[in-house]
């Protein structure tokens, strides 16, 4: 007998909390924290028992909920204190409301996108063609070319950093590079070793690329060949 479990996947802890709040039609300004905490932790336990990777953010939220719960259990010392003391739930509620505002607006924006993305424009290649047909001046400044190249390489660098989930100062890892090399090989059966190196932004990245290729060869996930001495080295996927 098979059991069907319908499990909703939540992007983050706020989304999960909102699901729990909406499910029980709870007043967001007066969240029964003990009940919600229990439900939240149950959900996390279920995910863990199913071996689903949980983002650390979910655990941070569980800790936050427990902290609020314990604060609310503390006896109030006097009536005056009660007036001054702020509700331990206040911060959480504020954050939940802010998140909800953006979640709601994203639904409205989605609607707008669905309507307007059907309006297509024309690419600008015709203008490029006309501009390129103009005569070149007698003398051009080399700085234009250098600036353009720098701009391109910087743009590429920052995109790469984001794709790899790294802060821009952090160094690229061999593991990152292995994934990149495999990705390149998933698009084309072979790539040139030279191309992999030439695309690197700096020496460090080139060295890491080299290490990643060695590691992939060791793991027998790629192989490398060279027909003759001094020929271009070809990297192939297995």
């Amino acid at each position, binding site marked *: 007998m098979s059991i069907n479990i319908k499990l909703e996947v939540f*992007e*983050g*802890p*706020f*989304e999960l909390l909102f699901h729990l709040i909406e499910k029980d039609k709870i007043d967001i300004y007066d969240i029964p924290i003990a009940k919600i905490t229990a439900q939240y932790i149950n959900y996390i336990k279920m995910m863990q028992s199913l071996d689903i990777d949980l*983002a650390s*953010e979910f655990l941070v*939220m569980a800790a936050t909920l427990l902290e609020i719960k314990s604060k609310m259990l503390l006896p109030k010392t006097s009536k005056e204190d009660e007036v001054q003391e702020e509700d331990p739930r206040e911060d959480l509620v*504020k*954050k939940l*409301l*802010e*998140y909800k*505002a*953006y*979640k*709601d*607006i*994203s639904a*409205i*924006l*989605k609607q*707008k*996108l669905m*309507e*307007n*993305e*059907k*309006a*297509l*424009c*024309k*690419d*600008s*290649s*015709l*203008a490029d063609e*006309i501009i390129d047909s103009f005569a070149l001046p007698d003398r051009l400044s080399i700085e234009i070319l250098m600036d353009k190249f720098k701009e391109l390489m910087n743009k590429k660098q*920052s*995109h790469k950093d*984001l*794709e790899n*989930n790294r*802060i*821009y*100062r952090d160094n690229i890892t061999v593991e990152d590079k292995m994934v990149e090399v495999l990705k390149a090989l998933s698009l084309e059966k072979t790539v040139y070793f030279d191309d992999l190196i030439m695309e690197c932004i700096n020496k460090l990245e080139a060295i890491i690329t080299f290490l990643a290729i060695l590691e992939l060869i060791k793991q027998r996930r790629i192989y490398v060949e060279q027909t003759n001495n001094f020929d271009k080295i070809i990297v192939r996927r297995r």
Partner: protein
Amino acid sequence: MDIKKIKAAIECMLFVSGDPVSLKDLSAALAIDQSTLKKIINQLIDDYKDITRGIKIVEINNSYQLCSKTELYEFVEKLLKPKAKIGLSQASLETLSIIAYKQPVTKSVIDSIRGVKSDACIARLLEKDMIKEVGRMDGPGRPILYGTTNTFLRLFGLKNINELPPIKDLF
């Protein structure tokens, strides 16, 4: 110059350019002052509403661009086969909403509002030219500040950022 010819010249320039053209550049090319030109362009925008026309002019940040009419999308779809739609996930849409309303904004602010890391979403939005780096914040690490692009405005049918639907006032 005859107003009819001005209209033709505007259409011609917008067609060739493909990209949005600023009122300023149009005004320089036509040697007509910007406020007169703006009136003519608004007339032209009305002319395009005619049922026999398949294209329209959209205004984005004081620039103008030719686009196909949305209501004729079905024909484009039949002709050019299903071209991939923009396709933004819920997570990317949330990230984009936060950037749209809070720009210029850093990744850590976005992360804190969403309660999760937004790196992948930001990378996708950059790739789709919906957002761009608009500078760096002073202070440690000099984090990147993000803002929306003209592509974002066009795809969401907004003339400028002030046309965003009002968000609930919470704070």
